[in-house]
């Protein structure tokens, strides 16, 4: 199907909005836009980071999800207490696939769930005593933990428990950092505020811990990788490229990361941010307090990797710059072969994306390297600065949707008929049943890594495996098929 023109896309938005009541329609209209590359500031065309409408299906998470799930959870050698009722921790444990090395339950605790399991009496009488007891139990059962963070769930804020006081008192007793995080789920409109709260907690309780301690031997080539969540091993595939360039990766935050690495981050020369949305706050803080420059990089697809490697190298001397070129040259044969193999199979396929806070723009380059085209993109919880960055990456008159509702997304897909959709588990089965190839772009559909040159070959293979899967031609039961229906899929594939 040919791409829509600007007018057709505008008509489509208007048509989709038609079913809403007047007030909801007015609100939703601000979140849907047609991309116009001439616009410098996204706020002129799209509204983001606003409260979702009651009654529509949104896939957003809460502040607790942003703090415990995204920023704190992957710090593997700390124990993160889900403080409150049992469900929040249990239903979010181990689902995000941020890989780590270590013995779970001995010195690493990434996939485990620690909770204070609030009951009615804790709501009535307060849960501070229970929290103190829980910390003692953790110390006894898991003595190799390097620290504890207290991730508040909604009731903690509602009943006004003083988790900071407990954290201070117990921290002195066990002589380990205990970090209280006020990330109650009701704060903010999405997980985005949880990222911010978690960043502020790191700023207040972790970053300054080694100020004035110069015992760590630094080199001029120290960098920290921030905001790479090591989904399916992403951070490892990124790290080897940086190390081959001659840089020393001192810290790998929140993707196979440890608290010691986080404490050392103020000693590095450059902070590399992969997920800007969740980690820009702490990078800005370190720039102000320690004068560490930071930059966003993108390790999806060879074009963007080469661009990013050169940009990173520009912060260092000529040796590193020469090394960056050498790394790009070294992998050229590998990625050329991947493109040669998969591009003919994927050329011209159209993709719609709807992911969290960085992938809707970061993976565009990787798809383009394979000759595919992104015809619609949107974020769950982005802010306007993310859309500023997206507008330039997207083609003219493509569709942008912010915090898209289940209904809108389905209608857009019915009309645009993309060849592939990249989104999350909540969308997966709806679209698969509609007969449209689908990849989960949060968890890489249990595959990965997708970052780096090694990741690109897996990315290309997975996209090919999904789009060219023979099952898409067999959506109708054979006894229901008419002759016309049998011919149609054959034509579609031709």
């Amino acid at each position: 199907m040919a791409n829509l023109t600007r007018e057709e896309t505008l008509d489509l938005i208007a048509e989709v909005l038609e079913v809403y009541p007047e007030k909801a329609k007015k609100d939703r209209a601000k979140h849907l836009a047609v991309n116009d590359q001439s616009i410098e500031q996204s706020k002129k065309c799209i509204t983001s980071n606003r409260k979702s409408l009651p009654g529509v299906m949104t896939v957003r998470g809460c502040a607790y999800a942003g703090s415990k799930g995204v920023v704190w959870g992957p710090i593997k050698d700390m124990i993160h207490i889900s403080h409150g009722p049992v469900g929040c921790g249990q239903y979010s444990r181990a689902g995000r696939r941020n890989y780590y090395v270590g013995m779970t339950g001995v010195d690493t605790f990434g996939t485990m769930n620690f909770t204070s399991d609030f009951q009615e009496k804790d709501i009535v009488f307060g849960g501070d005593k229970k929290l103190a007891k829980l910390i003692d139990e953790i110390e006894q059962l898991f003595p190799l933990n390097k620290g504890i963070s207290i991730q508040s769930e909604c009731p903690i804020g509602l009943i006004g428990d003083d988790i900071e006081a407990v954290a201070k008192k117990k921290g002195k007793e066990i002589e380990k950092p205990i970090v209280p995080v006020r990330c109650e789920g009701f704060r903010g409109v999405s997980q985005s505020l949880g990222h911010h709260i978690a960043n502020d907690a790191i700023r207040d309780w972790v970053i300054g811990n080694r100020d004035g301690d110069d015992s760590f031997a630094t080199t001029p080539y120290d960098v920290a990788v921030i905001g790479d969540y090591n989904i399916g091993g992403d951070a490892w595939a990124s790290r080897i490229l940086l190390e081959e360039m001659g840089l020393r990766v001192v810290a790998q935050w929140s993707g196979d990361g440890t608290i010691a690495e986080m404490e050392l981050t103020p000693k590095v020369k450059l902070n590399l941010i992969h997920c800007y949305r969740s980690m820009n706050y702490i990078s800005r803080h370190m720039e102000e307090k320690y004068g560490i420059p930071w930059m966003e990089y993108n390790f999806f697809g060879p074009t963007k990797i080469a661009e990013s490697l050169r940009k990173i190298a520009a912060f260092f001397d000529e040796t590193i710059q020469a090394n960056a070129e050498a790394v790009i040259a070294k992998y050229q044969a590998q990625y050329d072969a991947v493109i040669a193999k998969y591009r003919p199979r994927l050329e011209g396929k159209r993709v719609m994306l709807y992911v969290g806070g960085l992938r809707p723009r970061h993976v565009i380059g990787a798809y383009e390297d394979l000759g595919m085209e992104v015809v619609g993109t949107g974020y769950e919880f982005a802010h306007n600065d993310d859309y500023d960055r997206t507008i330039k990456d997207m083609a003219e008159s493509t569709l942008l949707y912010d915090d898209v509702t289940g209904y809108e997304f389905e209608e857009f897909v019915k009309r645009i008929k993309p060849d592939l959709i990249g989104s999350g588990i909540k969308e997966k089965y709806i679209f698969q049943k509609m007969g449209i190839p689908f990849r989960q772009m949060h968890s890489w559909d249990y595959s990965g890594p997708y970052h780096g040159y090694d990741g690109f070959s897996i990315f290309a293979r997975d996209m090919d495996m999904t789009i060219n899967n023979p099952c898409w031609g067999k959506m109708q039961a054979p006894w229901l098929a008419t002759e016309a229906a049998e011919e149609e899929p054959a034509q579609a594939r031709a």
Partner: protein
Amino acid sequence: MPSVMIRKSDSGALLFYVAKKDMEETIATVETDTPQTWGGEVELTDGSRWYIDPISPPPIFPTTLRFKRAD
């Protein structure tokens, strides 16, 4: 009176970032920008105007300052 973090962008322009509002804008003009003092009325590219008492000597960026709305 929001706290504003001012930092230099890659292109050398000054960025005006309000953490509370997650607002990041480029500074278009600064009333006083001499080697001795920096401050006064600041206009952003989105047209909004902010005020800060001139600081002398000029601050070293990035830094956090408290601004007032000028209008």
